[in-house]
């Protein structure tokens, strides 16, 4: 039972970190659009006839 005395504070530290991470995610706008972002990964660039060349020139 003594282990509880330091395991629980560790757990509370973890929650604190989780809350902090969650706040960061919300504040940086990650929850503003729940529909698009989850699907974006499906739109791949490797389809025939569509080279992503114009993208490479874009990003610094």
């Amino acid at each position: 039972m003594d282990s509880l005395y330091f395991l629980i504070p560790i757990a509370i530290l973890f929650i604190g970190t989780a809350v902090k991470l969650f706040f960061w995610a919300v504040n940086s706008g990650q929850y503003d659009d729940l529909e698009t972002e989850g699907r974006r990964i499906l739109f791949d660039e490797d389809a025939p006839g569509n080279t992503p060349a114009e993208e490479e020139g874009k990003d610094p």
Partner: protein
Amino acid sequence: MSSTACFHCGLPVPAGSNHSVLIGGSARPMCCPGCEAVAGAIVAGGLDNFYRYRDSRSERPEEAPQRTDRWTAYDLAEVQQQYVRPAGEGSGNLELAGLLVGGISCAACVWLIEKHLGRIDGVEKVSVNASTQRAQIAFDPAVVQPSRLFAELSRIGYRPAPATAANSEGLIQREQRAALRRLGVAGLGTMQVMMFAVALYFGASSGIESALERYLRWVSLLVATPVVLYAARPFFTAAWRSLRGRSLSMDVPVSLAIGLAYAASLYATAFDTGEVYFESISMFTFFLLLGRTVEMRARHRAGLASGGLAQLLPLTATKIDGGETASVPVAALVPGDRVLLRPGDTIPADGEVLEGESGVDESLLSGESAMRPKNIGSRVFAGSVNGDSSLVVRVTAAGQSTRLSAIERLVERAQLEKPRQVALADRVAGWFVGLVLLAALGAFAAWWQVDPDRAFWIALSVLVVTCPCALSLATPAALAAATLRLQQTGLLVAGGRLLETLPRIGRLVFDKTGTLTRGEPRLLQILLLRDGWSEQRVKDTAAALESRSNHPLARAFRPWRGNLQATGLRVHTGRGLEGAIDGERYRLGRADFAAQFTAQAAPEIPAGAGQWLLLADAGGPVAWIAVGDGLRPSANEAVRQLQAQGLQVELLSGDQSGEVARLAGAAGIRHFRAGASPEDKLAHLQRLQRDGERVLMVGDGLNDVPVLSGADASVAMMSAADLAQSRADAILLNGDLTVLPRAIALARKSRRIVRQNLAWALGYNALALPLAVCGLVPPWAAAIGMSISSLVVVLNALRLSRHHSPPPPQAGEGSYISGH
């Protein structure tokens, strides 16, 4: 019917139309030149993957006359300052444009827009939000002008507009983020405190070291404190507001329960006595916040589409100053200015025609579908659209004094006079709080006589046991579940009030144009008057003649445009068109006008639906063409089901013509009124309300906005004017009217479930209260009982999300449903 569907917008391709685009190696059919141009632009940009990714059909693009200067007004400095701002520190001299992009239907649209705009020189970053239909574009003003962004968006089939209401959006975003943060804190906190609580429950039943129990209480306190002080703060502020307004809303008992239970638990922890209720408080806060967040998101989503009245007016006008024309911002117009209106322009201010003759579409203001002829001396109104030829207008009223603004004031008045409905739970809350406080006081007084030591703890346990968890969750949980279910069915609910009002509705009033009908003219019938002509040739000829026309009726011929070419086109305002095809001159329009061509008497107008146009050449009449607005395919079935549910259905239209009677008959509606102005509509509605009727109004135009605001409940169509959407309680997303009877059925079920929940919550309290007053409820049992009663209420509400509407899909809609 085995007609093919347009590959771009999914509407049927009319027979004889031959537009197509090569996509992914095969020619895809297109319904109109608009879709063809948009699909062509998408494919030319190498973005044809859009058609693989998308999961809903695109919007049919509005085919406007392609004037090169259409968007240049957005480059004016006065106009830019409304929607463009510097991108901020560290990004050089980049600027950020906020655009409202109409027509975004799915995630693939976001991909398409970001890719397409991203390859314009000078555009640095594009981010599009599909749920708010907003795009933020960072661009270099030295390289690219904002008008280019507008032009490119419209080229790939979207409707761009400057997002001028940026302030309220920032507010909504902050509110949404704050709600999410609170929900996160409450959720994580609840999970942890629950874990400690399980240990404490077992400790209470099978023994626990007192040091460990104290320790667990302190850590519970540590975790529950942010939940109460941060996550539950909205309840406290709302309760305080309600108390200051001298009323008892549901927030009052909620705050009382959370506050007192927390204070008592804090006291118990600090002085190592009594009982703690941290887990109940946390879970209760979490569930309540969840319901409110769902409701808020739906409300914001509906509200975002609106930009208010200003969005209906153009940003600039062409002012004539001593022979010179110049683009000036509309805000700078003053009475006395002379303004040039080209065909297709939206009229920026009220005025009087000085030169020219044209038809003006005033449907936005009056609901009248036919063009109003205007000549020298006629009055024109801001918000209406100039039709077929140019006008010079002297401004008589601008800004706040226009007729358009008068309608807005009518809207505000209607909202003030709207019958108020107090939510059932709030009505219950009033006497419930009083009763509980009395019981607690009574218990305290009684036990003070018997056993003063226990009096405080028993009074507290009365307050905690009767914690109105289940009671206050009863309504929001059911409303949240029903709101989500309705959204899946195709009705976006903007206010929780709608679900409480719908079951009480006794009469449903439809608007005509755009609501009961598609709001778009279609070719109904062709009567050939001469041998050797086929229907196809008539369609092609008419389409060629109408190809340059801005008249609403011209849209009916859009599918066949381009099959033949006409030259020397002339518009005779209010009468018809004239032009030559392969050297032969034709006239299309009103019977007397077309027949005049050959100096013959006009033939008798045939009987039948729609507006009849005559096509004639030098040899005499060729064919009659009937054009009209058709009923939505779901209208009949919807009216039948609504009447089966015991509702009175009525048609109320601003249109003067006999069309109203005909459509009412076709849809099976017995009561109808034609030619009603916005004021008439509102007066009619208020007369009904005085007679004790509860009215659901379904409409789409600006002329419906006052009635939508004044009705007990209101639904706007997805294609409606922005203002109409923002004032309605719900938006019908897919134009399927049978969603309405389904929504009413669901609302009735949701009312049943709210009542069951309230009965359960009151029953539980009725049982627990006497036991607690007698001091018979051990606090841990009270906590478990409270949690279980809340869970029962939530689970009962969840039954709504699986609700299937009783009316089975009938044949007409069957193909639509199985198509998924």
